[in-house]
């Protein structure tokens, strides 16, 4: 039995009268490739916001590597090893790509020794992801695909144990999707656990070892990609009745 890196127990979140998440429980194992899917408005983004700390869950608990993190501010969760990319890229617009990467390096990877020389490290990551030649550019000058890559590169710079990739491939061409998938596989081989949230089924199904399906704030299915595809509940959720 593999070690549980992230464990979510009975998490609930409301916005006013609207139940965004009801009693959701799931776990992610160490070094797993984990898929999270569900129709629009099913609560995926709310759930990862609760994990990353942008939102606070109301009921239940969230454990990361055995530590309860539900009450922690987001930056401390990042320092524990949870990094995320955003669905709509949120780069630091006034900084070059290199400087963008220096922020997580300085504040997370080297949080204890501020001022360490992080530029060369940032350059390495840019090199890995294929943005090295644009290190001096501003995010505004990037193409859609490079923007996605920057988003991932910045998350990588936080040196996470767990990387949450929030629809990193939306709007990309098939070739570009493969490019991103390749990066994610490589990261996973390097020992990083990955949660992928994605609408592009081809990508999730080929990437994930295990998938959880959310619908209307509740978990309706869990299993291998094959199991999930053949699940009736899932079919109903996606196609409607």
């Amino acid at each position: 039995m593999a070690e549980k890196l992230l464990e979510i127990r009975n998490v609930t979140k409301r916005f006013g009268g609207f139940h965004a998440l009801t009693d959701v429980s799931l776990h992610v194992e160490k070094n797993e490739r984990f898929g999270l899917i569900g129709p629009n408005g099913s609560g995926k983004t709310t759930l990862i916001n609760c994990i990353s700390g942008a939102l606070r869950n109301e009921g239940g608990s969230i454990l990361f590597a055995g530590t309860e993190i539900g009450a922690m501010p987001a930056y401390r969760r990042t320092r524990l090893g949870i990094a995320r990319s955003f669905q709509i890229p949120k780069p630091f617009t006034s900084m070059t790509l290199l400087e963008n990467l220096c922020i997580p390096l300085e504040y997370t990877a080297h949080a204890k020794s501020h001022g360490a020389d992080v530029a060369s490290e940032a350059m390495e990551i840019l090199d890995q992801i294929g943005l090295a030649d644009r290190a001096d550019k501003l995010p505004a000058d990037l193409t859609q695909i490079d923007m996605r890559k920057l988003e991932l590169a910045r998350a990588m710079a936080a040196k996470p144990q767990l990387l949450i990739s929030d629809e990193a491939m939306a709007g990309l061409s098939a070739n570009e999707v493969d490019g991103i998938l390749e990066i994610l596989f490589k990261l996973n081989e390097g020992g990083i656990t990955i949660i992928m949230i994605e609408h592009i089924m081809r990508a999730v199904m080929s990437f994930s070892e295990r998938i959880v399906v959310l619908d209307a704030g509740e978990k309706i299915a869990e299993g291998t990609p094959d199991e999930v595809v053949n699940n009736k509940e899932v079919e109903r959720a996606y196609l409607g009745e």
Partner: protein
Amino acid sequence: MKSKGHLLHIAVALAVVLVAFLITNSMENRYYYKASYVVLQYVVLATAWNILGGYTGYVNFGTAAFFAMGSYTAVALIKLWKPPLYVLLVAGGAVSGLLGLGIGYLTLRLRGVFFSIATLALAVVLQMFMTNWEFVGGGAGTAILKPRSVPFFSNYDEFLFFVMASLAVAAVFVAWLIENSWVGRGMAAIRDNEEAAECMGVPILKLKLFATTVSGAMMGIAGAPFSYFVVFIEPSSAFHLDYAVNSLAMPMVGGTTTWLGPLIGAVLVGTAQQIATVTLSAEMNLLIVGSLLVGFVVFAPEGLVGLFRKLRGRAMGRSA
């Protein structure tokens, strides 16, 4: 490389202070000291405003409140036991710094605009308290007698000029330090995208509180010698909206992302205002500030520093 940069800047800063001191010993004309004092005071205020507004992206409309609290702290102490000026500076800075910390703690969890509104309200509330606090003169105001003489300087005006020049140098130096440190880079991340910054491990609340505190303290320090400068202090002039407008317009004109921006803005706009005061009518003075503010925000959002860079970039592009 890094420590060399520090040394150079410290040397430049000390040199400016020394020059200010030498000027006081060679020039007699009082007007230049008074006018320069006002301009230098705005260098401090604009730089202070920019640490929060320009670096971190939170708009403070309450500069007057922080400035006036520094002044009134000094007035209270002068009424109590007439301490030396450096005590006033420290106390004024402490009170306004705490004020910044408090207002930051109250509102910085919210969207930035609420912080701005709160600072607006803060100025009104504090003005009301000062108006009702009879010990420091209340609404009627109070006259402050400045010390007759001071060692090394031939009169107190020169001394105040020297103090304010040193404070301006110190303020710009602090801004430079912050800008070029991990703290400054974290602030810039907050300004660019707060949510992303936090997810990249930046402790946003702590940094924002640091910014409000330092910025508030610097404004308070700038306000501390004010009562000696005007010798008469009353709430409506100490809390004058001009401080809020100018300390915001100056960085906008100069450029908000570097320490140089507020310095350029304060010197240009401040000097222009001093000249306008003695040449044009004051309506024109206000009109100029207002138009500059709107004009720069609309047409040159990066300020003069940004314009300058753009021009040079173009020139370099051509030569390359």
